[in-house]
């Protein structure tokens, strides 16, 4: 991990002013469950890390029958799923939070962080970006006596799409025309989209609002990110309109404690 500057602002205005205008210059720290592993793997090397955990305004949960549910981005997943009102009025949200594996992660991981996770695509996590391609010549590293030599067996697979041709059992196959094929790892996103939630984003020009559905985008270039957030904006809060309970079905890999493969939600 590289050395970096650390800032812990107490207001959202300070936080925004501390953020850079390019992705990767600065990173936002809340629960840190994803950021730390990204930094340890050198997938991001920010010059400054801005800890937003001390911004009181972005914490907490509030409910009223008329205006619905307001979730501060800093609410932990454990706070969300153990909240009596959420359990009663929005059981799908509580279930989705429960779907985030391991109590340790739920106790530090935040609602905003769940939505801003980077892809768990293992090519991406290996440092190959969204669009891993074979580069140059590929062939056996050694040739033993009697076998073909490297030069005889080498093939030029340059430009071959590694995900499409490779190990893609955890990649997106439905509703994705590419060019990036990862599955978004957020557990809460399907529930928030089904519940018509609004994501409120704070930037230097003040608040703006997008629907949960529009919040996510498929990156077209390696420098892009997976949401409509700009580098110097913060996911501040989430507003969920009053609603009926919804069942959720989560498709996971068999080992306990692994990330969800394909969270889904059916609204009845």
């Amino acid at each position, binding site marked *: 991990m590289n050395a970096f500057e650390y800032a812990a602002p107490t207001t959202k205005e300070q936080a925004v002013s501390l953020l850079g205008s390019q992705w990767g210059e600065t990173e936002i720290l809340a629960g840190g469950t994803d950021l730390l592993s990204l930094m340890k793997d050198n997938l991001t090397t920010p010059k400054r890390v801005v800890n937003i955990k001390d911004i009181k305004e972005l914490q907490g949960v509030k409910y009223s029958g008329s205006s619905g549910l307001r979730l501060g981005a800093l609410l932990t997943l454990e706070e969300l799923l153990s909240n009596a009102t959420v359990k009663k009025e929005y059981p799908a949200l509580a279930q989705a939070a429960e779907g985030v594996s391991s109590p340790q992660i739920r106790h530090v991981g935040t609602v905003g962080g769940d939505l801003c996770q980077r892809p*768990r695509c*293992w*090519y991406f*996590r*290996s440092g190959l970006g969204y669009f891993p391609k*074979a580069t140059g010549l*590929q062939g056996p*590293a050694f040739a033993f006596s009697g076998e073909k030599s490297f030069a005889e067996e080498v093939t030029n*697979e340059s430009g*071959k799409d*590694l995900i499409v*041709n*490779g*190990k893609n*059992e*955890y990649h997106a196959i439905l509703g994705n025309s590419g060019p990036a094929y990862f599955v978004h790892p957020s557990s809460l996103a399907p529930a928030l989209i089904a519940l018509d939630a609004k994501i409120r984003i704070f930037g230097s020009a003040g608040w703006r609002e997008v629907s949960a559905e529009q919040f996510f985008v498929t990156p077209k270039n390696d420098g892009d990110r997976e949401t409509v957030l700009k580098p110097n904006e913060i996911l501040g809060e989430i507003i969920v309109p009053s609603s009926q309970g919804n069942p959720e079905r989560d498709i996971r*890999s*068999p*080992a*306990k*404690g*692994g*990330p969800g493969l394909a969270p889904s939600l059916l609204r009845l």
Partner: protein
Amino acid sequence: MNKFVAVQDCGLIINEKTAESQVFGAMIMGVCFSLFEERVMDDVTGRPLNANMEFYKLAGIGDIGDFVVHMWKDDPEQDARGVIGLGEPPANSPAAAIGNAIANAIGVRVPQAPFTPARILEALEKKGGLSS
């Protein structure tokens, strides 16, 4: 995994509790490598894709069934053999035992560990489904 029984013959037992613990440990390891552990490599680049504890899967506590360890003991002939190693032997049989249990349940052998859902479906497909 519902129930898993191991009967271990290891010669003279000095301390039964720790000897049993060795077998329990081996059984847990056996469940891990029979059902979960797998190194995934990218075929084109030869890069390991799951060199981390997120995608290199291990059994969690919920994946471990009811384990029964039965130490072969009170047999003068066995005791006379003296102390024999116990670290590795009980780790040898779980994959075979679990593989046999799967073959018994679905009527077809899954020839490669770990016996993942995908490999079981593949074996069933080759056989032509569960019903035949």
